[in-house]
């Protein structure tokens, strides 16, 4: 398959949402994807965060910092990005007497992660 054809196929797949759920045409453009792989999620730290949130119900910042071995600055930067994108829900909650910042994956985040998994498998076929 030459470059033009593959680009055309990828564009068609994108328009139809690939094999996964439909891609939101208003907020996401073709440039956000590479063969259906969302560039935003392909960033390793964001991918790790979203994968851990997808594998659990709720997780707090300390847990993620310990598990992923990140600095506070790095973690909060990516958490903010994910929250802005609507992929995660961030809430402050008291557990006992101590406040915790709890993170939870949103429905949008779940869809995007599933789509990302499918896209990367398709790409590597």
């Amino acid at each position, binding site marked *: 398959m030459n470059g033009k054809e593959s680009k055309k196929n990828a564009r068609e797949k994108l328009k139809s949402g690939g094999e996964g759920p439909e891609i939101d045409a208003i907020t996401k453009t073709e440039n956000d994807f590479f063969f259906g792989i969302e560039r935003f999620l392909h960033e390793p730290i964001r991918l790790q965060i979203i*994968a*851990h949130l*997808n*594998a*659990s*119900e*709720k*997780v*707090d*910042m*300390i*847990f*993620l*910092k*310990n*598990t992923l071995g990140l*600095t*506070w*600055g790095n973690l*909060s930067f990516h958490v903010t990005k994910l929250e802005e994108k609507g992929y995660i829900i961030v809430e402050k909650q008291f*557990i*006992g*007497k*101590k*406040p*915790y*910042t*709890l993170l939870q994956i949103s429905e949008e985040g779940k869809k995007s992660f599933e789509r990302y998994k499918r896209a990367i498998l398709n790409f590597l076929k």
Partner: protein
Amino acid sequence: MDAMSQIQKKIFLSTIKDGLTEIFIALLLLIAGFAFFNSFLVVLIFVLQVSWSKIERKLKERYIFPRIGYVELKSTHRSNFRKYYTCFWVIMVCSIISFFVLVFFEGWSIDTTCKYIPLIPGGALLGKSLYFCIFSSKWKYLGIGIISLFLAIAFIFIPFPVGRDFAVYYLWLEAIIMSSVGSIKYFNFLNKYPVVQEKNGDGG
């Protein structure tokens, strides 16, 4: 095993590395041993079992979450409980049946009952270790359960003068093993994870 299952198991492992469950089991076994001398303690065992989830939660809020953070396991993870409960009850039923069969063949008396009764807590400990094994896929957790059952069987062949001693010594030995495992895990945990203060924004 796919990546998501591996992450789920990793998250589960991080919730059990504090050793609190082992210390609680040790406490129960210790009290169960003393209950042979004072039957009132059976009530204490029951109360402890019922209130353990609340006590554990309070302990975790105070000593564990400030160190490793808070995590709530996924609800689909709980579906594994069916698998665990099935295995647990199969082991328990086998232990109870073996106990009754052995007591029946040797002739019922307090001494023979006490001689074979370690088979039941031995089975329960094997069942409990299955919980850790199923949810974490780490076979080492099954080791403690197998040792517990093996010890229960070995105790049958040790000629104690008083029948009650079979059960009491078994329970206390198990309590020592479990408390040692739990304490080592807990102190390792304290050393490895200092209390973390959550920072917002542009920390380092």
